């Protein structure tokens, strides 16, 4: 197994109290496999990823428990210097907003080349040549001429390609892409996703795709983990989930996608708001918004029930959800 996250807990200490952002997350990613992590903002999907990468802001963030096994090694037990060497080389991350995620005062060539200078001890000149190579690989035209330009001189799509190039630079075995296409135009989104998928299969990398966009997921993901209030509420191979979700929250998410064959009908929306992470409701965190909620949902936290071999649902009434 390439990556295995076990019972991960992350908290944020703020002036108003402790926000429990991640509450016992488990997931695995294999080489060449794509895991899509789905959820609203605040569901803990990005925080989990940052904890895996080791770029959580500590404080206020704090890893309150769990294990992150990367190629069999628990990253949380490593010294910072050893972890640093894995970042960028063993696993890399792509962020949502490429404009703010790239350093505005350094040329893209410098920022790409930096990977080789730091991790591979290359000379600046060789690193620059590598940068051009990378830019060509991610499909940036006139790479040689543009290598000395600055992030603001590129279009949004090109910037995200540069982010991808940076993540791919050292051919890591795991890529975490945090909403990589959210900030882009729809036409560009598809190009960027295609590029990501192509590079992934070429390099046989594991990919964690964090998104709230179900449309993106269907095409590229192998399996899906749906997060709510810092927990995984449903996990399943991608096609099963679209056919028949086994958790009322997933069901709600799927039903709120506009569909052409339901023209004229009112769009479905999950009622209520996501919970306050400082004050997560007892029992199942989703119970105040759930159409199936019973008394047990307000007292007992549902475990991840096994639905079938590869499927799990954290709902006391998963059979009803599956068949309803």
């Amino acid at each position, binding site marked *: 197994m390439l990556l295995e996250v076990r019972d991960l807990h992350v908290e944020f200490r703020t002036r108003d109290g402790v926000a429990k952002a991640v509450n016992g997350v488990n997931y695995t990613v294999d080489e060449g496999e794509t895991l899509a992590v789905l959820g609203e903002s605040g569901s803990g999907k990005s925080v989990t990823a940052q904890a895996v*990468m080791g*770029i959580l*802001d500590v404080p206020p963030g704090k890893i309150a428990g769990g294990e992150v096994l990367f190629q069999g090694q628990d990253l949380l037990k490593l010294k910072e210097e050893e972890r*640093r*060497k*894995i*970042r*960028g*080389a063993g696993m*890399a*991350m792509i*962020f949502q*907003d490429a404009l*703010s*995620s*790239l*350093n*505005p*005062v*350094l*040329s893209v060539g410098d920022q790409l080349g*930096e*990977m080789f200078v*730091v*991790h591979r001890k290359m000379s600046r000149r060789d690193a620059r040549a590598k940068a051009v190579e990378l830019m060509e690989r991610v499909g940036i035209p006139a790479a040689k001429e543009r290598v000395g330009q*600055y992030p*603001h*001189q590129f279009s949004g799509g090109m910037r995200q390609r540069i*982010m991808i190039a*940076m993540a791919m630079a050292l051919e890591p075995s795991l890529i975490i892409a945090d909403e990589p296409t959210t900030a882009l135009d729809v036409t560009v989104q598809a190009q960027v996703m295609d590029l990501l998928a192509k590079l992934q299969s070429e390099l046989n990398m594991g990919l964690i795709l964090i998104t709230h966009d179900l449309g993106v997921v269907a095409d590229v993901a192998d399996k899906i983990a749906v997060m709510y209030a810092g927990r995984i509420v449903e996990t399943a191979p991608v096609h099963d989930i679209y056919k028949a979700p086994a958790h009322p929250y997933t069901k709600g998410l799927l039903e709120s996608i506009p569909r052409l064959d339901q023209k004229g009908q009112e769009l479905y929306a999950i009622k209520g708001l996501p919970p306050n992470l400082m004050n997560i409701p007892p029992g199942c965190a989703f119970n105040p918004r759930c159409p199936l909620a019973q008394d047990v949902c307000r007292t007992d936290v549902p475990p991840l029930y096994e639905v079938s071999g590869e499927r799990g649902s954290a709902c006391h009434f998963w059979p009803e959800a599956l068949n309803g």
Partner: protein
Amino acid sequence: MGRYVIRRLLQMIPVFFGATLLIFLMVNVMGDPIAGLCGERQCDPATAAQLRKEFGLDKPVWQQYLTYMGNVFTGDFGTAFNGQEVTELMAEAFPVTIRLTIVAIVFEIVIGITLGVITGLRRGRPVDTGVLLLTLVVISVPTFVTGLILQLLLGVDWGVIKPAVSPEAPFNELLIPGLVLASVSLAYVTRLTRTSIAENARSDYVRTAKAKGLPRRRVISRHLLRNSLIPVVTFIGTDIGALMGGAIVTERIFNIHGVGYQLYQGILRQNTQTVVGFVTVLVIVFLVANLLVDLLYAVLDPRIRYA
């Protein structure tokens, strides 16, 4: 870039004439320009009238201003109260004040930025709180009180420095006066650097740099510092003009015969030529410093350069 420079240059012109005109008008309010010309005694009316005519003082103010500016551009700044050319006074005074300003700027850069970086990276820790409190105290106590107390303690009581700076004003005698002159700005540089560092430390690109697996040192020096220092560099640059003009108090305390001293004398003796001349040069220094800051800003931030 070229257009940017030209635009800044063009913007300087009205500011230069505005500021010099303003000071010209202020000095005109200040007193009779010929009062000091007949030595200690009062000029008799006939001489006064003649002098007035000679200096063109019978003409309207705006004409006087134009004549004066015309002279300035040919290098003629007029005559001081003791018959010395104002340019001669400048040649004596400016090197001294420039040395004092250099000392002050070096203090701002070395101490201010260092403290700012340290506190910015350790926000909320005891070091941060301590330095922050210290900067507030420095800002709150007027410079002349700080100066007087340092002069008393270091100069008179402990004899570490000479309480008064010798006329040649070498660098080593200007250390404490320079520190006093820099003190308030130094506190601001510290606070500005701290805010800037703390804010940029949370930025997306610093997160990216961490995710790239760069060593902490490199994240700070190459990514965080460069972006954070852009506003600080600007502040320090703009401060050059303010320091030279603000040296009056420091120069008075430590008896330094620089620009502030000459200006003070000029004002006491109501010598308009000295005052207007010195202020004109100070305005030029201020504008040139601002222009340099703008250019430096463009060098540091490619978004300006390629805008």
